[in-house]
């Protein structure tokens, strides 16, 4: 066996990667799960692109400040967050 590699039965799928991408970027993923995540990235260029897009989105939106929002956008966002927290 190539030691240290995940096997077909526990390898990460693209869908699973998308579900845990935030944990990966925030560094809260367990080491073994990070290994599985990066093993997937090593061969899946689609997920590499997806990860790059998420990173870029965080970079761009992270530069936004409250005063950049129109009053309507601010109200809409607050409404979304309230509904989200009430679920």
């Amino acid at each position, binding site marked *: *066996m*190539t*030691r*240290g*590699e995940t*096997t*077909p039965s526990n390898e990460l799928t693209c869908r699973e990667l998308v579900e845990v991408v935030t944990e990966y970027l925030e*560094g809260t993923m367990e*080491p*073994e799960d*990070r*290994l599985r*995540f*990066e*093993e997937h*990235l*090593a*061969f*899946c*260029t689609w997920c*590499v692109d997806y990860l790059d897009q998420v990173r870029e989105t965080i970079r761009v939106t992270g530069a936004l400040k409250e005063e950049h929002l129109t009053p309507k956008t601010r109200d809409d966002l607050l409404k979304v967050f309230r509904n989200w927290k009430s679920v």
Partner: protein
Amino acid sequence: MEAFKFLRPGRVAPFTGVRWPAAGDWLEAEQPVELCRSGVHALLPEALPVWIAEELWRVELDGAEELVPGILVGSRGRLLARVEDWNDATAREFARACAAHVQVGTAGRAAEYAGDAATSAETATADASATTVAYMAAHAAEAASPGSFAEERSWQARWLAGRLALDAAI
């Protein structure tokens, strides 16, 4: 301890984006070593097929531990020399060998995977495309004979080590 490291062009680490210093200069970890999170990571030959990238380097790690089989993590590391034989030509050779190794006697899904591997091998280069062919071939082996995935990965690792004379390098 000596090991190997695949890097993107310009000595860039694939996941962190860190640019390794020129050969001979140490790259120091900023945090205590932890698998896939901090520390300087490198590979033993047996793990190479999973992590292929454009440049292959022979590296030296200080304070290295094998945190999972085949993957070493140290507090610092330095590039010793680039494995010059690893290039697009040998990557395609590797990809074709991986595909050919699983062609015989396959049927059904195994044959589909093997066919995909053979097709993809023709355009493989020293990057994720070669990794993908090796991955497909390992899945073809698994589909043909459940439990063979790891064995096929071992065969791929031996092919790389033999073709690139890696065992002699460390």
